[in-house]
């Protein structure tokens, strides 16, 4: 009898066991969703708290306008009265959010949802191009390092990638911009050294596994060993890195968008932070928290599937 036939699956299990297995899965998914929602809500509240209790929250550049009289300044202050009681503001905000209303931006005088919709496209394009380029370059440099194991190549590429680890992403973007190069590629230059180093270490570790040695001893071709025995072994951790690299790309996008004048989410965050725009900052915090958690959950799920497939 083949090993596959011996493998137990839900069809082989008695009805009670299969039901219990499904119940366990549903419990696990429910718990994951509950943690996801709770983390997002707390992250949003944390963002609002930081803004509200920041020592400069009450300061408003508009109030320094010499043309305004005492009544106008008083009216300006009264317009922010709702934001003073943080808990009430946040509960009210969540209630409105449920209906798709994220409030009106203080500094842009436009609906926050409209601002986010417009700017998210720019940031997603910037991040998408950067991540695709960074991963392609990182893997393209890591795979030969694993296959050929040439110390000189390894040293040259490590030094080359190390340089980009030491330069702020915004400086890279500026230099590319002035050299008439694609400033969007700055995120790729930030991501690729990390992908290269991590992927190389993981793949080298995978080549030293006993099953790879056994595959070599049986005379399998290099390509078959690499794609069937090395890559699946390293895939779960590479997928975890993919989730982390999204967060890194967003962090890098903020200064790049500000300095290169890309009208994206990063630039919006910067402008909103300078203007102490609470509705925009709370919405952005929640959006960023949701995005980060979704990507992390997706990479965790993909990694878990890879691990199961490997077993």
């Amino acid at each position, binding site marked *: 009898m083949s090993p596959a036939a011996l493998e137990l699956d839900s069809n082989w299990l008695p009805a009670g066991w299969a039901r219990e297995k499904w119940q366990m899965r549903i419990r696990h998914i429910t718990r994951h969703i509950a*943690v996801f929602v*709770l*983390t*997002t809500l*707390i*992250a949003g509240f*944390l*963002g609002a708290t*930081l*803004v509200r209790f*920041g*020592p*400069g*929250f009450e*300061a408003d*550049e508009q109030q320094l306008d010499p043309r305004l009289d005492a009544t106008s300044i008083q009216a300006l202050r009264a317009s922010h009265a709702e934001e003073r009681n943080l808990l009430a503001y946040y509960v009210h905000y969540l209630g409105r959010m449920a209906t798709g209303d994220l409030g009106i931006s203080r500094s842009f005088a436009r609906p926050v949802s409209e601002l986010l919709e417009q700017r998210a496209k720019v940031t997603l394009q910037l991040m998408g191009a950067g991540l695709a380029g960074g991963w392609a370059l990182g893997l393209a440099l890591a795979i030969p390092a694993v296959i050929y194991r040439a110390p000189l190549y390894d040293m040259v590429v490590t030094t080359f990638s*190390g*340089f980009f*680890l*030491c*330069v*702020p*992403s*915004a*400086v890279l973007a*500026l*230099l590319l911009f*002035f050299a008439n190069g694609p400033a969007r590629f700055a995120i790729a230059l930030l991501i690729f050294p990390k992908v290269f180093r991590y992927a190389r*270490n993981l793949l080298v570790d995978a080549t030293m596994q006993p099953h790879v040695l056994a595959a070599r001893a049986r005379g399998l071709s290099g390509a078959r060993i690499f794609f069937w025995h090395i890559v699946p072994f390293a895939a779960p951790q590479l997928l975890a890195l993919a989730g982390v690299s999204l*967060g*890194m790309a*967003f*962090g*890098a996008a*903020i*200064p790049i968008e*500000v*300095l290169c004048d890309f009208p994206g989410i990063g630039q919006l*965050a*910067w402008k909103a*932070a*300078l203007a*102490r725009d609470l509705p925009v*900052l709370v919405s*952005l*915090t929640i959006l*960023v*928290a949701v995005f*980060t*958690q979704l990507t*992390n959950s997706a990479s965790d799920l993909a990694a878990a599937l890879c691990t199961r497939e490997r077993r």
Partner: protein
Amino acid sequence: MKRLRQIAIGVLALIFAVSLFANFVAPAPYAMQFRDFVSSPASRHFLLGTDELGRDRWSRLLYGTRISLLLAPAAALLSTIMAVLIGGIAGYLGGWWDRIVLRIIDIFLSIPWLFLFLIVRAMLPLNTPPLESVVLTFSVMGLLGWAAPARIIRAGAQSLRNSDLVLHARACGCRGLRLLLVHIAPNLKPVVWAQFWIAVPTFILGEASLGLIGLGVAEPLPSWGNLLRELANPQVLMSNPWVLAPLGVLVVVVSCFQFLLPQKEFAQ
């Protein structure tokens, strides 16, 4: 590798010593404005030229290096201490405490560090004096940068708690603080040390990124971040390539810190 580490330590020590004695080495105070030599190119009097306010770039680079090199390790130390206290104790105690701490870490990690820092830094009063802005910038970095190292230290403490050596110590009657200080803390030291060395260049680059977008150390105090702001002006960059000097020093210093990091821990 050992030779490279020695060279890195030597280079760092040299840069640190020169910047530490900036008061004696720098030809002019960092805020002094030579109004007759505004935006002048590099010369015998002004090694790296002057900026648009007539301030000597070489002097500002020396003072800026001192600020970044003194305060980034201080911020890294603060975040590492917080990570040890929060993550290490959570890993050691386990149970509910561990779960709560893990959730808090997840919340902090769900928001990118630079975004969080941008919000907090921008919330400071508009008229923050320069010296206070330096302390606040690096303090906030230290206070917000603990989550990632805390997760790693927690994992280290947890694996040590379940290790044979701790089991043996427990069987010999070792409990509580003694177990923590004598058996767990010394074995956790390499992980903590690696986290510290990872944090220093991260904070240096973080301050540089913030300085570039005008949220770092306030003028007239120099730092690598606000010195790099000159790069945003292409005309200055074309007429005086010496404005790239702070970037060169930054790359050298961060590279040296990369070499200081124990390779085994970095690979892990």
